[in-house]
């Protein structure tokens, strides 16, 4: 019986363990190790210590590309928090009052989340075309022609425009998460406060916001991970070199380009590419771990 139970345990666990170890754990550990070797194309040569990192930090144009791309990720994170998540919060607060059509609105807002970023990217690329696109044409028609510009072509607006496209796709997500958080607030808290004569704003600020903290933490962490993993949208809309003049270059593109080759050459630099991956990896894991611990502690405090 004991032996039988063991055997069954093994049968139940083996497929998942094997699959996960082979295609997640092993590659990730290898990725860390790869950054310490020198590479010739895809062939691994000798142990190189920190040479790849030194090259990444000291050989022009790598350091500048790295800093530029990192900064753009930070900007994307900041703008997404400001635009997408605050909009999401506002929509959630409205929907929580259960206005007419709330269910339908909820479903509509969430719809773009299911669309492929490739579709979203190409679609908005066509809309934003300065000559034939519908956006500038519409602006012209309503008398705002002066606002029309090459949204994706100018270094000042390209990254913001991409972030807005991203927000269009994602805004339903924080909306639903916040909405779930608000709905979890016990109704009698709210009623009691209202009976005490608290205004709606006071109720929102004093009761709903504090209780929404776990949802906020989750959204912040997910936004962070999403922003620093950004790849599809800039790739599809702006191409692998982060046009114009690296204005939309992000770590994901830099990593892909370094590892798999620039536009005009197929030159691969696996060593430096791996070094970039390790840096991104450390950053993401640190932040999500700290975030998770933080989240846990808050939950305990409130529970």
């Amino acid at each position, binding site marked *: 019986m004991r032996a039988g139970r063991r055997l069954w345990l093994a049968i139940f666990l083996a497929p998942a363990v094997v699959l996960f170890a082979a295609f997640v754990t092993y590659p990730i550990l290898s990725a860390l190790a790869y950054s310490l070797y020198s590479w010739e*194309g895809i062939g691994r040569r000798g142990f190189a210590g920190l040479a790849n990192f030194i090259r990444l930090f000291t050989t022009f144009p790598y350091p500048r590309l790295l800093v530029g791309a990192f900064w753009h990720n930070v900007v994307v994170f900041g703008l997404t928090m400001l635009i997408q998540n605050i909009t999401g919060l506002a929509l959630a607060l409205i929907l929580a009052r259960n206005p007419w059509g709330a269910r339908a609105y909820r479903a509509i807002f969430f719809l773009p989340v299911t669309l492929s970023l490739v579709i979203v990217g190409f679609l908005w690329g066509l809309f934003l075309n300065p000559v034939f696109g519908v956006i500038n044409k519409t602006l012209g028609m309503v008398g705002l022609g002066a606002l029309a510009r*090459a949204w994706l072509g*100018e270094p000042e607006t390209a990254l913001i425009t991409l972030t807005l496209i991203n927000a269009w796709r994602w805004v339903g997500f924080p909306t639903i998460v916040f909405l779930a958080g608000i709905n979890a607030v016990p109704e009698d808290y709210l009623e009691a406060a209202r009976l005490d004569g608290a205004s709606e704003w006071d109720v929102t600020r004093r009761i709903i916001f504090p209780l929404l903290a776990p949802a906020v933490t989750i959204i912040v962490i997910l936004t962070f991970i999403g922003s620093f993993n950004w790849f599809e949208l800039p790739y599809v809309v702006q191409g692998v*070199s982060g046009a*114009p*003049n690296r204005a939309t270059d992000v770590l994901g593109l830099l990593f892909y380009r370094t590892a798999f080759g*620039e*536009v*005009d050459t197929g*030159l691969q630099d696996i060593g430096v590419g791996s070094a970039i991956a390790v840096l991104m990896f450390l950053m993401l894991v640190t932040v999500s771990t700290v975030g998770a611990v933080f989240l846990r502690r808050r939950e305990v405090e409130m529970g």
Partner: protein
Amino acid sequence: MMRRLCTALIAVALFATFFPASVLGQEPVKLTFWSWRTEDKWVYDRMIRLFQTRNPGIKIEFIPFRAPEYATILSTGLTAGRGPDIIHLRAYGGLETFAAPGFIAPLDFEQVPELKRFPLQTIAGARSRKDGRIYGVPFATQTLVIFYNKKIFAQHNLTVPKTWDQFLTVMRTLKDKGVVPLANGGKEGWTLEVLSGVIAPNFYGGTTFFEAVTRGQTTFREPAYTNALAKMLELRPYMPTGFMGVDYATMQQMFINEQAAMFIGGSWEIGFFKAQNKNLEFGVFAAPPERADQIPWVSSYADGNYGINAKTPHMEAALKFIRFTATLEFGQMFTDLLAQMSAVPGVVVRNPQLQQVQAMNRKATPYIMLVGFRWQAPTGSTLLQSALQGMMAGTLTPAQVGEEVTRGLSSWIDAFRGR
């Protein structure tokens, strides 16, 4: 009984899916042919059909990719030990990056005797610097020019400008009349590199500068070069509104639909323009130099080569096709159908625009980054394309562009270091 029959049927179906007919019967050899020439697919399909009727045992599938992604996709495919059998390769450094690691099968005169008749200058684009061997059959030479819409020019009584100032005057006139003078945009960096390849040589001194800079006697910081780039800025008022967001497709659309009077690009456009709008009457001219008595420089280069994957299991069939691409018949068809200058010697040019281009080539200079500076990363083209986007958008000065390019190249060009 019924159940057994079903099982049998499913088994057969599975078998058929997993082991395509090749196991069951004599199937032709199937070759894949990758390319970045999405526009030319119809021509390649036609030539492949011709080849297949003569070689019934061979089937070829032409698969084009988006040009900006092509190098990366090819590189990934080849390192994966896969990739196509026949490869449309770029020339010079763009070929070297695939030839040097051994991805491409070297060719010799014994395998492809037709290559003997190609001029050395054309073959140069197919040669690896590493071992000096030839890695492909050159397919075309391209020249960078200015296209203009004859109808629009006639409507406004304009003639082809002979000097830079006349050029600017023509554009000003067009703009005043409400016509977009120039279709060019800056969303895709490579179209800006082409723009510089058209405009700049007259001002930096063409081949003299090319030789000096490739020998390391000067750098791209040289004022002659950066001042030449600065000339591009004078075109900005005549490009479409929001030109920084105008991509290649939009540029083409505008010129084809006669929404813009001129288009700065490469000779490869001729065929495409014709195919898209049969009523389009257009001519070509070389970028006008400072003074009327100067003969203008045009940038030209060997466009690329047809090569063979070193790992192809069908070497013999692939060689057959490669030899076919080196024949006069193929070259003539290529030039006739695509209106591009085939690299095969002896081809007769019948297309009037292409004849003009051919005449311009009497004073040709190598397309600077593509011929001279694509041998290692970061390539001159990568650096220049990004920096030019900055320059055209107004965030970099021409001098800063020269600085960027030189600094980037100095990571692999010793002569540039510390200069």
